[in-house]
């Protein structure tokens, strides 16, 4: 019976069909037991802390950080991601003059993966950019895992500063080239008068 080529074909298929899903199930179980418990408790703690800190205090810190380029493209994106998480972090762009908004977005969105190395709750849905690569490091050199996490975070901060400044410059160039200067001058004046969108009160 076992020599029948049809039967052998069927049993080969069955074996590998099951094998494929067994392998996938093993991978899934590894992900769930490896990452999920940490993520769950961390998310809980961070949500609670954000509630305790309160919205007004966060907003005030963000507005303060938005004043200077150095903090606008480091501290501000970090706080926005940490407290509002991806994708609500970009709403903090409303505190900035129009001409800085693209740079702030570029800077903030570029931090949405480096931040997961230390604060996985900030972008839990996209954790595997970091978790995928770091799982390999965990396997090959577990002692370097923590250093890698800190380095990813720190280099991330440097990179978003560079990106912010570069995009801010590029936005300026494009405003000039596209003949939008008059429009943006009007926006700047409106901002100077304190007409920030979204801060009605």
């Amino acid at each position: 019976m076992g020599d029948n080529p049809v039967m052998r074909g069927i049993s080969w298929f069955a074996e590998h069909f099951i094998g494929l899903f067994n392998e996938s199930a093993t991978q899934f179980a590894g992900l769930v037991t490896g990452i999920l418990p940490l993520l769950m408790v961390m998310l809980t703690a961070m949500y609670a802390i954000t509630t305790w800190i309160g919205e007004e205090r966060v907003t005030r810190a963000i507005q303060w950080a938005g004043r200077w380029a150095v903090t606008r493209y480091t501290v501000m994106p970090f706080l926005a991601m940490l407290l509002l998480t991806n994708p609500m972090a970009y709403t903090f762009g409303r505190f900035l003059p129009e001409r800085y908004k693209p740079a702030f977005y570029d800077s903030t969105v570029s931090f949405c993966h480096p931040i997961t190395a230390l604060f996985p709750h900030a972008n839990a849905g996209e954790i595997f950019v970091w978790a995928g690569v770091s799982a390999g490091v965990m396997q090959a050199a577990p002692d370097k895992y923590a250093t890698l996490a800190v380095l990813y975070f720190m280099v991330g901060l440097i990179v978003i500063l560079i990106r912010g400044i570069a995009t801010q410059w590029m936005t300026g160039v494009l405003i000039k080239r596209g003949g939008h200067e008059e429009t943006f001058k009007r926006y700047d004046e409106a901002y100077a008068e304190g007409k920030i969108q979204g801060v009605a009160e």
Partner: protein
Amino acid sequence: MSYQTVKIVKGSGGWGDGLVLTPTDERHVVLSVTGGGVHPVAAKIAELTGAEAIDGFNTHVPDEEVMAVVINCGGTARIGVYPKKRLPTIDIYPGSPTGPLAQFITPDIFVSDVGIKQISLVDEATAAAAASAAAQTQSKEGGASDQSSTTTATATQERPKTVSQTQAEKGGLMSWVVRFGNFIGYVINTLLSSGRQALQIILQTVLPFMAYVGLLIGIVNYTGISQVLANSVTPLASNPLGLLLLSFIVAIPVLSPILGPGAAIAQVVGVLMGTQIGAGALPVQYALPTLFAIDGQVGCDFIPVGLSLGEAKPETVSVGVSAVLFTRMVTSPIAVAIAYLASFLL
């Protein structure tokens, strides 16, 4: 006495659509079922509307006279009792529907994490609209309160007997203990509701992605595709120049918006690279530059949405999209270069 209308919105950790309340001659009581006297939130509502704030622990008020109930409960009982009677309920603690009566806690009748700041006076124009809506809810409540009046009487009369309540009024050490207890209650309730929030994102986003990634890695590993992929990607990823090239490719303005969505591609490549590093095919030092090389396109699909979240003007969006896309071609390789240098610290 002329009555005013107030609007109550949820706090930062709160739940519910918010309430618009106007007292009437029949319904003129803000019931404070918080313990330790009338809660400041109840007092504030009463002060703004012209209604009367009453401590529900000491005084029994018929449901027909109650305009709104202020509670401090994130647990099981009070949080559901009043919404079940269709009385507008304001919870001081952050909380979302839980407990055995969770199905009665609906966003139109319940709002949580409310402090003094969440209460504001509504001007005349909107008040008129709200009044008609309030009239509707009250006619609905009329029917419901008849049936529940018997249960109400027993429920409200039981409560004044709570030990903590009588102790709180006596002052001294016990009032301090009660206040401490209330504080602990607040802490625990925030943590519980955070836990619920965390579980929600894990169920809705993280677990489905894990299932997908698990299946993908399973197939790739089992069929040997990972070997093929490794052989083709490794030359690119196994030297700094290859990583620079990779980071430039993903940042090309035509490609980056396609590669971006959900970071799906970055995540899959990240997992594959991780597997290679784990297997020893790629040196550990390359982990850091790799993280930036595979992520040069981050957020490029999302620029208009992200900018409009920041309430940017249409002109800003049109300028901003090109500004971000073009600078990426330069900043993406720069990121890899910095990461490569930093990786020597590893």
